[in-house]
């Protein structure tokens, strides 16, 4: 079972993502901020990270570079309500940039695609 780390500062959204992704058959780990996210990437075998951008403390862009510093191979999906970070160079290190919507189908589809692509090499 693939393990997904969801990094999201909003508690309600964390619960939502956890439920929905569990339903898809993934093992889900949660982090409420960038610092916790980096620690969990370091200490767990994570197959994919879903990362919010606007968070208190280190934002998602900075967290992304911190995640790469501890695990350069783990794929990251940036999942944000804003399109304005798309030009930011560091966000290009993410596997995918998804603009949040109430419907999680795009996110789920992307997770599946990335994990399928990853398998042969792992």
């Amino acid at each position, binding site marked *: 079972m693939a393990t997904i780390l969801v990094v999201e500062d909003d508690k309600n959204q964390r619960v939502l993502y956890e439920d929905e992704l569990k339903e898809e058959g993934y093992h889900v780990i949660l982090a409420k901020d960038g610092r916790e996210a980096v620690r969990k990437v370091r200490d767990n075998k994570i197959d994919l990270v879903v990362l919010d951008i606007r968070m208190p403390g280190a934002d998602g862009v900075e967290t992304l570079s911190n995640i*790469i510093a501890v695990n350069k191979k783990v794929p990251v999906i940036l999942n944000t309500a804003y399109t304005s970070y798309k030009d930011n*160079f*560091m966000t290009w290190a993410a596997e995918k940039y998804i603009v949040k919507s109430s419907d999680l189908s795009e996110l789920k589809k992307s997770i599946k695609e990335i994990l399928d692509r990853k398998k042969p090499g792992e």
Partner: protein
Amino acid sequence: MMNNVMTIILAGGRGERLYPLTKDRAKPAVPFGGIYRIIDFTLSNCLNSHVRKINVFTQYKSISLDRHIKLGWNIFNNELGEYINVIPPQQRTSENWYMGTADAIYQNIYSIEAERPEHVMILSGDHIYKMNYEMMFRFHVEKNADVTVGGIEFDVAKAARQFGILEINEDRRIIGFEEKPEHPKTIPGSPDKALSSMGIYIFKTDKLMRAVIEDTKKDSAHDFGKNIIPGMFKKDRVFAYLFVDENKKEVKYWRDIGTLDAYWEANMDLIEVTPVFNMYDKEWPLRTYQEQHPPAKTVFAQEHKGGRVGAALDSIISAGCIISGGKVQRSILSPEVRVNSYSNVFQSILMEGVNIGRHAKIKNAIIDKGVSIPEYAEIGYDLEKDRKHYTVTDSGIVVIPKGATVENDK
């Protein structure tokens, strides 16, 4: 023309093969030609090419380099958008030192982000040459290149099994790479020449950023020459710009002062009647930092037997030197060197503040900053003895490091 180009000079190499000259300083800060530091040649190229936005990325032993740039190169006008910044590792995207040239760029992604230039030019602070980067940039724009690599031609025979070779087509587009090939591919139109990378690059910024980000996630040497360029040329527009030498001599001058012997030889070239490397061209001025010193001086002209004669022949004598009754020949003296009576200095490089005691004899030596040679000491005459205390190179050059205490041989 160069307004939308950010220039990055990589000045973080350890220069281990130049040890002990790099004992206390990074390679770009190693003195050269009496008054210069190695990085001055690249910085002078920038100045002469209208390059005015410069970031120097330092790493190891950067104090000397940092000081030199602050004192000597703080000539840019911020109000005109010009600057020179010396940037040590920020440890913002990594807790490691730079793992390679590409990693140095990746780790500074935020400083490039902050300015978002259209193009980034990447230079090395290690090389001695004269080049107009504006011409290379013009070529880069004309070709609409994603990246342009500076290349220097070598005779095929010399290049074989020696260098990484760039294969180009008639349009100068790079179509292949070979690492130290037996039979190098030649340049179209020049069947006896092969092209090697000079380690200088101009990138479209977004292409550079995508390339270094992709590279950082790989197990790679994180090196432009080994990883980035070979990974790009098949899918991107990668061109080679052929080095045009502003030194204007028959043979193109480009030196990576890789070894102590190469360092000594490149310095010795400067005292030839017509050196290969021309420091006197007013159209390509070389700049450095110099303290104020009184003029160089020679004293004693007692040309009778047993008398003292202070003289320098076939030599470079910097300001503040006093040659007081000793003889200097085929040597390079940095500022404030003192050569005392009855001493003899031959084919040597004496750095700033070196003192040569009376009756001392110095031959084929490099004496680093501030070293005092006592009376009657002999350096370079008995290499077995010198080898016990100092570095002696393959060709017999004795190197006395900073801070060394030299013993009296009498």
